């Protein structure tokens, strides 16, 4: 285990130290340094303090754990690996994510999962334990977003305009979503037993990490949201 004190270091120096270490790294006293772990693969990075924007951008494997809140654009365009956040995460979490997993214990800001995508075996997963802000899954093109709303007694688990422009992938919201207005091009329906079986697979690691009883989490009603067609803009731009 290598311990790196981030105090007084810029992001280049921190990443350099992580890269040159053969062992798992613990970064302490982090305060806003951006791009930690960016583009790295197969590293284990444990962060204390507040990491800056674009944490784990282009991540290509390994695990990053944040023991406090994270800032904006966590896992921007990440390809593989896992990012675990024990607090809240800022805006645009999982921006254009194309693989890997982001597990957030608390709330997510605006535009979580914006333009998340999938291709063949690359299916990104983002699980948000608390609530998500507005524009959740904006332009979502693939992958899976799950919002659990575990920490609040209020039913509303997402802000305004969820799934705006969504045209691929899937979203699960742990709510009946009676108070949520979805756009026309998606279908929102109550999760069936089959859906819950699928959810169980995706939530098992999350529940293990945050020490949650998966059966209890699954006992509440979920809403599943999918786009109506694989190509909803078919006739909008070109006739193919």
């Amino acid at each position, binding site marked *: 285990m290598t311990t790196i004190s981030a105090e007084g270091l810029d992001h280049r120096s921190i990443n350099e130290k992580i890269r040159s270490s053969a062992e798992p790294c613990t970064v302490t006293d982090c305060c*806003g*340094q951006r791009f930690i772990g960016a583009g790295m693969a197969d590293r284990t990075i444990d962060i204390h303090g*507040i990491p*800056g924007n674009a944490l784990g951008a282009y991540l290509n494997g390994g695990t990053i754990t944040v023991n406090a809140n994270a800032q904006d654009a966590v896992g921007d365009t990440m390809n593989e690996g896992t990012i675990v956040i024990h607090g*809240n995460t*800022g*805006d645009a979490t999982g921006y254009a994510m194309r693989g890997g997993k982001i597990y957030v214990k608390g*709330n997510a*800001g605006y535009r979580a999962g914006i333009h998340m995508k999938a291709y063949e075996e690359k299916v990104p997963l983002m699980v948000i334990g608390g609530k998500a802000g507005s524009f959740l899954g904006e332009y979502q093109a693939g992958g899976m977003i799950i919002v659990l709303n575990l920490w609040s007694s209020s039913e509303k688990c997402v802000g305004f305009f969820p799934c705006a422009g969504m045209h691929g992938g899937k979203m699960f919201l742990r709510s009946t979503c009676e108070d949520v*207005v979805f756009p026309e091009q998606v279908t929102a329906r109550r999760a069936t037993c089959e859906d819950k079986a699928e959810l169980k697979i995706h939530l098992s690691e999350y529940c293990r990490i945050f020490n949650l009883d998966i059966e209890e989490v699954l006992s509440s009603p979920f809403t599943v949201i999918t786009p109506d067609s694989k190509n909803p803009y078919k006739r909008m731009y070109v006739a193919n």
Partner: protein
Amino acid sequence: MKKEGQVRIPSGCAIAAVISKEGKKMSGEAITNAMKPMHDRSNGLGGGFAGYGIYPEYKDLYALHLFFDDRNTRKECEAFLKEYFEIVHSEVIPTRKTPKITDEPMIWRFFVSPLRSMLASMQLDEKEFVARAAMKINTQMKGAYVFSSGKNMGTFKAVGFPEDVGMFYKLDEYEGYSWTAHGRYPTNTPGWWGGAHPFTLLDYSVVHNGEISSYDANRRFIEMFGYKCTLQTDTEVITYILDYLIRVQGLTLTEAANVISAPFWSTIEQEPDKEKAERLKFLRTMFPSLLITGPFSIVLGFTGGIMALNDRLKLRSMVVGEKDDKVFIASEEAAIRVMEPDAENIRYPAGGEPVIVKVKEGAF
């Protein structure tokens, strides 16, 4: 070199603010340090601060902060000021030499009181009189620029990184009950001191991170009411809009926020509180030209309080935290942690949701 106003300047930026609800005084050191972790949000072409409650010995006088290109301009401007004001005290604003801040203009402050006879003959209230005098200097007097004109508050700004600007102006030697800060990232700047934030008019100051797309529509409307947008920067127009809505039209802060960052019609339709929905509709109908679109996160400073606000789509980040009597606001949580490592109740206001913090009555 072209100055602000001759060239359009889009900007990115970092903002931060702190206020004591008890009116307890804080030096400007913490807010200066808060800008350090957000260094990369600025590019060294502008930084600035506003402090409130910093001039208790002159609290009933308007503190005019001015940049002058040269000595002659200062003399000319001083002669102009004497026609309208009693100048109780004037001095060079103390600065600390640093290699990181260069090419400074002459930086002066004047503590002034409007001449009673002038107020009477012009039939204006004091604030309007001061606002017009500041506008007049900024639009008509070449080489002179009023960058702060409120009572018991002051703006300090320069070309440089914000943390260096704070050092340059010796903000550690001032004590205020609230502070706002700005680091600028213009992508195309002539780099003029007056173009840095905060932008102020009277005791209103605005720091702004963003790039509004409604600038010209807003400008055309606000210029009908005597404001002159001289700098082509969106922050200036935001400052005048807020002055117009709050001081001139008498709107509350929340109402002003609902005008400039109005909810979508579809969102108003979903509003369960019918009375609130009607109020929102009314404000959108009354002031459609003052809706500000495009990304912004701002902190408005005023006597006795601050208001933070995001654009309705929340295209910029903003974090709020608290500890004891203090409330902290910043573009990034890291900045809040620098000011208060144990800050609590960290939250992320929604787009269009104003965060209004006031010092308790009588404490400032």
